[in-house]
């Protein structure tokens, strides 16, 4: 009985491997490279002919003239290597609490006292989160404006202009893409 089933079972494994493992992925990749090359190759942003990042992938910014991204669990080199992942620290983790306290101290030192937006002191799921919350961006605006010797209003206007809002009020969040925001800052006309 098993011998009788051997040919159809084996043949179907081979047929579906060829179809869904070779033919379709090849054809689909080819079609997408042709039809949607920008997305298919990682939504890269170029400046002066050089790729400076992906519109979807976060980057690390440490200079005071730039908005800062969310903390990343991918230490010691966050946002730089081809890895991804979260801290996986549980809610009662002492290490997590210490990390959050340290980040709160650094954040309030840099951007002034007050309640700290949760996204600014927690690591993201991917470790590559490209966005920060709108509240977080607005909290950082004065400091960024000071570092760039710009009026705060110019910077907050830019933040508000680039911010995403939930579609129909329910799909998504109020957030800003940090790379696009910092790029727009660099491209502000000279005063």
């Amino acid at each position, binding site marked *: 009985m098993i011998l009788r*089933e051997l040919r159809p079972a084996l043949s179907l494994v081979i047929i579906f491997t060829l179809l869904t493992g070779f033919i379709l992925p090849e054809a689909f990749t080819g079609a997408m*490279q042709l039809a949607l090359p920008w997305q298919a190759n990682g939504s890269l942003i170029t400046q002066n002919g050089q790729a400076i*990042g992906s519109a979807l*992938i976060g980057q690390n910014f440490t200079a005071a003239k730039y908005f800062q991204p969310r903390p990343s669990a991918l230490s010691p080199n966050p946002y730089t290597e081809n890895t991804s992942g979260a801290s996986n*620290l549980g809610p009662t983790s002492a290490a997590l609490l210490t990390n959050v306290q340290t980040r709160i101290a650094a954040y309030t030192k840099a951007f002034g006292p007050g309640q700290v937006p*949760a996204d600014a002191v927690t690591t993201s799921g991917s470790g*590559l989160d490209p966005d920060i919350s709108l509240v977080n961006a607005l909290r950082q605006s004065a400091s960024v404006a000071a570092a760039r010797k710009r009026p705060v209003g110019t910077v907050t206007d830019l933040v508000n202009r680039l911010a995403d809002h939930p579609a129909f009020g329910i799909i*998504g969040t109020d957030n800003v893409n940090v790379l696009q925001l910092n790029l727009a800052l660099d491209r502000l006309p000279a005063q």
Partner: protein
Amino acid sequence: MTMQGLLYIALLFVLVLGAAFPLGRYMAAIFEGRVTWLRPVETGFYRLAGVDEKRQMPWQGYAIALLLLSVIHFGLLYAILRLQYYLPWNPLHIVGMSPRLAFNTAASFATNTNWQAYVPEGQISNGAQVFGLVVHMFVSAAAGIAAAAAVMRAFTAGSLKTIGNFYVDLTRISLYLLIPASLIAATLLVIAGAPQTFAEAVNVHTLNAGAQTIAIGPVAFQEAIKELGTNGGGFFNANSAHPFENPNAWTNLFENFLLLVIGFALPITFGHMVKDKAQGRALMAAMAIILALGCVGTYAAEAAGNPMHIAAGVAAHDGNWEGKEMRFGIASSAAFNVSATGTSTGAVDSFTDSYTPLGGAIPMFLMQLGEVTPGGVGSGFYTIIVFALLSVFVAGLMVGRTPEYLGKKVQAKEIKLAMLGVLILTLFILAGAGFSLVTASGTGSLENAGPHGLSEMLYAWSSATENNGSAFAGLSADTPLLDYGLGAAMLFGRFAFMIPILAIAGSLAAKPKLPASAGTFPTTGPLFIGLLIGVIIILGGLQFMPADTLGPVAEHFLLHSGKTF
């Protein structure tokens, strides 16, 4: 918790349940051989493979065909993973997996689990992902749906000797459902930003931080079938939290829709096949009610945030953002992870290990219930049929009458087989987690201490046995104990459960179909739905309550008393 968050969850349910009705009708047409738009391809496959499409199989034949194909495919994947260094599309020259990791991974993908003890970015080539893992994502999903089709046929008429042809079911489900739907979904994902290329990495010069290497690959094609086939194996380590797998809030909603829709369509298909649509709607209602409660529960827990972090100075109304992505938000993250554990998907768009204790307990509990809300493609359906049989059995005991389901008498043999299936799953979860935690190797795998560590291990065994594949991902799973132990749990959880179910189907198929009488317990309507939910929670969940109490429930109280580990 905000009204906007609740509205998001409501929108998700409206979309999924709305689509499940037409999809369910279409799938009934596939199972009954009435869909023919790729007929020349279909018959070509039968000719090549030597399949006689007229041949009908008894349950034993169906089970043997399914098992044999799965064993062959398991062997092929094991070979691919060991030999990937020598195979195409491996520009980074990633070496072959160790025997134990290859065994675990092959078991994981052959059983529709997609548990990932490996790190995708470093331990598997693009080639092995595409012609190894992705093929299994199609075939294991189709095999699960085929088993569900076989179980459905048992109820369609009286005195049946056969329950269909496995090869024909597998081919039709792939050609008419999974492949075309995946291609459409993958195209939409590329439009939204998911990459599709055979390059493995892009190097860029960043504005501020110097160089950045961005991992890339044929992501969209895998992502589509990963969700639609309730597989869950991420192209990247961060799974659906990775911006390339899940670029924005719209794709998050879309992927959540994809991973639920076939599961909810199958009871509707059943209603069409047995020519009594109310029967299908009743099963669907029970699934949807439990899942909706789970989504809202986890959302509420996550929106409340971490009290210790709030005390440290985090804004109180923001919620728990550790392990979550900014673009999705709390409600949408909670709904995604709960949906992925209510099905056998196990994809995550945020990391459950960092959820609040009760927020993480709900996904674990939904797996322990047997994944019936709506469950994996196919497996969720045949599992809820087991619970439906147990429900009519319980109702029959109350009035002292032989229970029937859809005119088929449910007798000792069926109930024994159903309980055997349930007990196999329970045994692997509780004995496996218990044993692991008394070994040095097991405790060495834990990332977190205290009750959260117990939750990590319990979650791992629940996930593997129920073929889910999600994790409290801090657990180091690539150890001899967990590679072999969880690998075995996945294989038994899939096949040692599926075969008793096919036996039940065979046994019920052979029985005459009795007309409903005044004494028949109706298996539609609120009374039955309530009873079914009760049976799922009591019979499916009660045995896990002691373990869950020591894990997440204990952690909840410790968290609120300010205790850390």
